[in-house]
Every structure is written in C-alpha cells, then in structure tokens.
C-alpha cells in the first residue's frame, strides 16, 4: 500500500516534468546504446581477429629445428668436467628436418584424449620459374582433408575447388598474390625448382587468400604426396605435425610435455601469437571505459534533473512531511524517480543497442584480407546486455542517492516559515 502510494507519487512528479525526464532518460538510453553496440562490435572484431589466428594456426606444432647441439664433445671428457668450457664457431649438426617415426607419433596423438585432431605437413623452399626469373617461395604439402577439417582450408581457397588438390595428381593451389605475379591462371602448368635443383611441373587448380600479404605472395599448397615426390623423399617424409586441442588453454603445458616425450621441438599458439591476446584485451578495455564514461555522464544528467526537481518541489516535500510522510518515504519517492529514468532509459538503450548492432551487422565489409567476411562483425553476447542493464540501474541509483537524501532531510518548518 505504502509502496504503491510512493510509486504513484514518483510517477506523478515524473509526468509533471516530462520533458526534463525524457532528456535525462535519453541520456541513459544513448549511453546504454553506445555501450552495448561498442562492446558487441569490438568483441565481434576481436573474435574475427582471433579467429584469423586461432582457426588457421595449430595449437601445437611439432617440428625439427636446425640448431647447434647443446651437448658438445668436450662435455664427454672427464678431465674437463669441472671446467667452464668456451667453444667458439659452433655449427649446427647435420640433421634432417624430417620427423622420424611420425606414424607412431601420430597414432599416439590420435589416441590422446586431449587432442581434437592432427594434420601432418611438409614445408619446403622452392623457386617458381617464370621465363628466366626464379621467384623464391614456400610450398606447404598438406593432407588436404585433415587440413580442411582442422583449419577450414576451403574457406581460403577463393577460386577453384580445394579437393582438386587431392584428386588431381601433381596439382598446386597458389597464393593469390603469387598467382598474379607469375601470371598463372587456373588450369595452367607452372614449373618449379626445389632447393636441391629438382624440377617439376605442377597444374594450378586454385588460388587461396589467407588475408596475410606475405603468405599470399609467396606460398602455395600441394598435397603431401606431390611434395614428397617433389623432394624425392619416401612416403613417410613429413616435417611438421600440427595439433589441435580440445582446450586451447592447455597448449603451453602440452607443448612442453610432447617436446620431452618425442624429443622434437614444439611451439604452442600462445607463445607464437602473444601479441594478439594483448590487442584483444586492450580493445575490450577501451570499449568498457568508453561505455562506463558515457554512463557516468548520463548519471550526472540524472543527478541534475533530480536536484532541480527537488529544488522546485520544496513546497510539496514540506507538505508531504507535514502531513505524515517520513524522510524515508520522501527518499524513496525520489529514488523511485531516478530508477524509473534508469530502467526506462536502460531498456530502450538495450533495444536500440541491439538494433544498432544488427544494422552494423548488415553493413557490407569487403576486404581482400578477409575473404570469408562479408559484413562488419558483431558478437551478440547476452552478457553485454546484462552488464548494460546492471550498469544503468546502478548509475541511476547512485545519481539519485544524494539528491534523494537531500530531499529526505528537508525541514518542513524552514520551508513553511519561508512563505
């Protein structure tokens, strides 16, 4: 009863000052709209950029690195055991890039519960021969199906069909930039030379576009078999094993484990791409700060209108108190006004924020760098809406707190004497 009475008084005071109320509510609406839109957009962008890396990069990559041995012959000598030995001009030992026993390793990995998939790979340096010019580049020999399952290979093959790489013998998919450089069309035969001087002719079955210029201008894909033939290696030759995990967070830990277990080099995605995580968190931080700043500004708007209202309604407050409303009642009436502004402004802000997000989601965004993206990215995470709703209520409550307290402390005698 009392509560309903206070609410109805709040409502009447609000309606009597409808214009200012609307202005204050619009402030909240605007800030919540921007807050939600900004976060959805930024988060969409983050997901997109993360996806760029996460979708295409192995969580863990196993390989052999050519490097000098940590263990030099002098270490074997008992007489120099207690010495600190300086050795100059150490050279890398003759070691092959091949991963030995890779079939066993791959079987082991497939059985590991934490692994969601693996794809073998060969990376090798080649020269693309165009007339009398040799362009250097890289061929990635891939297991076409595994690569597609793990890294959505087909998304990046913009012309031609990715599966032709498997079905057509001696075929190649060129980076888009590279194809333009060597003037190769789909169906053409190009010639390449390996580092060891072997020559081979390959048929172009498609172009791919990864979005990273450096890659698109120099790299191309061939099937593992083709690459093995190219290198003159046996059917067991591979240089990399790419691993995807069920939980990406485990990558650094598992990388260490596999490194020990298989006596190979292992690098995890977090170590390889630490700059991306930093970028994401900075973008998120910026969106939150802008959103919260807007809300605080809106809060001051509410603070102002309430102060003005209280100043105008001194007489009404005095008579309410004279006729038996307590300070607490008066306080609740004004808090009620603040919250009404906050709730209505907030709800409208959430709706408009959603609308604006949808609108942005439909704006065409075509960039050569991101072939799969057609419109601006938006992340419709309900969490942003929850945070927006909570923030709008919390800020309006605090904006209303001090004016309401002031109103509740008004001494009716002073007002009535003043008349």
């Amino acid at each position, binding site marked *: 009863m009392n509560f309903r009475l206070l609410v109805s*008084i709040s409502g009447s005071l609000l309606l009597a000052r409808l214009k200012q109320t609307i202005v204050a509510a619009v402030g909240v609406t605007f800030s919540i709209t921007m807050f939600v839109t900004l976060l959805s957009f930024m988060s969409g962008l983050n997901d997109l950029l993360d996806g760029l890396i996460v979708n295409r990069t192995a969580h863990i990559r196993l390989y052999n690195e050519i490097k000098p041995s940590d263990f030099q012959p002098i270490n074997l000598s008992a007489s120099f055991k207690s010495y600190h030995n300086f050795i100059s001009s150490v050279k890398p030992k003759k070691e092959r890039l091949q991963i030995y026993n890779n079939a066993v390793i791959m079987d082991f990995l497939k059985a590991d519960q934490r692994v969601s998939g693996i794809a073998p790979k060969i990376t090798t340096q080649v020269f693309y021969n165009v007339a009398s010019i040799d362009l250097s580049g890289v061929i990635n020999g891939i297991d076409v199906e595994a690569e597609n399952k793990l890294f959505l290979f087909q998304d990046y093959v913009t012309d031609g069909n990715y599966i032709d790489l498997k079905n057509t013998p001696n075929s190649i998919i060129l980076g888009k930039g590279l194809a333009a450089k060597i003037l190769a069309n789909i169906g053409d035969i190009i010639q390449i030379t390996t580092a060891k001087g072997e020559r081979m002719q390959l048929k172009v079955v498609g172009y791919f576009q990864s979005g990273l210029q450096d890659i698109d201008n120099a790299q191309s894909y061939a099937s593992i078999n083709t690459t093995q033939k190219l290198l003159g290696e046996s059917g067991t030759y591979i240089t990399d094993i790419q691993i995807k995990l069920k939980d990406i967070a485990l990558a650094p830990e598992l990388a260490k484990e596999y490194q020990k277990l298989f006596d190979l080099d292992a690098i995890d995605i977090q170590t390889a791409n630490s700059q991306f995580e930093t970028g994401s968190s900075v973008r998120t931080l910026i969106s939150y700060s802008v959103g919260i700043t807007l809300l605080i500004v809106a809060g001051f708007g509410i603070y102002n209108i309430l102060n003005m209202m209280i100043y105008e309604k001194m007489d009404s407050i005095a008579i309410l108190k004279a006729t038996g409303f*307590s*300070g*607490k009642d008066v306080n609740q009436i004004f808090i009620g006004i603040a919250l009404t502004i906050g709730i209505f402004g907030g709800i409208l802000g959430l709706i408009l924020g959603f609308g604006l997000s949808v609108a942005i989601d439909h704006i065409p965004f075509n960039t050569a760098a991101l072939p799969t993206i057609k419109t601006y990215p938006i992340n419709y995470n309900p969490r942003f809406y929850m945070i927006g709703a909570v923030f709008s209520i919390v800020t309006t409550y605090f904006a209303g707190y001090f004016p309401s307290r002031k109103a509740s402390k008004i001494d009716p005698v002073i007002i009535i004497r003043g008349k």
Partner: protein
Amino acid sequence: MDQIILEAKGVSKYFHDPITVKVLTDVNFSINRGDFVSVIGKSGCGKSTLLYILSTMDTDYSGHIIIDGETMRDKNEADLARVRNEKIGFVFQFHYLLNEFSVLKNVMLPGLKLGKYSVKEIEHRAYEKLKILGIESEALKKPNQVSGGQKQRIAIARALINDPLILMGDEPTGNLDKKNSEIVFDIFKELAEVYNQSLLIVTHDNEFALRTDRIIEMEDGRIISV
C-alpha cells in the same frame, strides 16, 4: 467528562542563529477534546514557533509535548511522522496543494499514507469532507484551477481526512478576503459544534478570536492568559 488531548509542559525554545534568543519561555497549557481554541499575540511573539513544536515538526525544544497521553520526546522521525499523519491536521496560511494531483487526490494523500482504509473508502471519505466544506464539485479539478478561498478549503479537507485528534491552523485565513475568511471561520465553528472537532488556531484577527471558545494570549514567548 473533559479529556485532555494535547498538553504543553514547560516548553521553552531558543534560536541560536545569528545570536541566541529565547523565543518561548516555560509554556504550559492543555486542550480538551472538542475545544475550539485561538492563539493571539503581537507579531513575533512566538505563536508560529509554538505551533510548529506542538505539531511535532520542530523537535528542537525543551519541556514536554503530550499528545493523546504520549510524550513526543522519545519518538524518532518516522514515529513523529506517523503521529502527524494520524492525529494532527494542519492548515497553513499558504495552502501547499500539489499541482500534480487532482483536488480529490490531494485530499486523499494523507489517508493513503495512513492506509487504514481501502482506496475506495478513502475516496468516499474525501468526498464527504469536500461536501462538508461545500466544494465537492471541484473534486476532479487541478488545484491551480480553483480560487484562493477554495484552495484553503481543500487544505482544510486534507487536514481532516484522517479524522485528526486536533486541527491546527497558523493564520489559515491570513491570505483570504473578508468573505472567504468568514466562510472558513463558519466551517471551523461547524466542525467544533457539529463534529466535536478540537481546533487550535493562531490568528491576528481579534474578532475571529472572540468568537472561539477560548483564547490563549501570548507576549514575548510567554502565555499571559489562557
């Protein structure tokens, strides 16, 4: 049998700003149920001050105020608000009506706050009070759509909505012309005689005072005759 409903015992009050002055000195008196009492005295002698203390709005005094057998000394702000709501009706020189609400809702507000009756019943009672004051036809207007005399009568109706123990007035006719003052006085008289309502009215109008049951005369913060 006379029942004391309001009593002041040794009430004194100081103002400290800008200098300490004593505006009420040892005020003692009591009012019985059904009394129609007027308070007179020169301007500045402390009538309004006394009334604010009696109405529980001003708590900065020494001595005791006893309303309906209870001292107001050890009550907190919320309790005092409740006492004002339930037991005291107040009419000021200015009407203090809320323009956001209709005349009827203005009258109903203290009743709704008390919450003793249903909304329907409070509305019905508000109409009754307006009828006693002869302004039921104005019920659905906004306060700024009625005349000054009518406004003051609405304020009286509002003061009466919870059937207060006592109706207090601080120069309730001070802003009204002769004719309207006359109407208001007649209403007070009727309330006292027909409805046995107790009234305590501060006035400058000696003619008005002479027609009440009892006159309390003040001078320099003291009561000189009861």
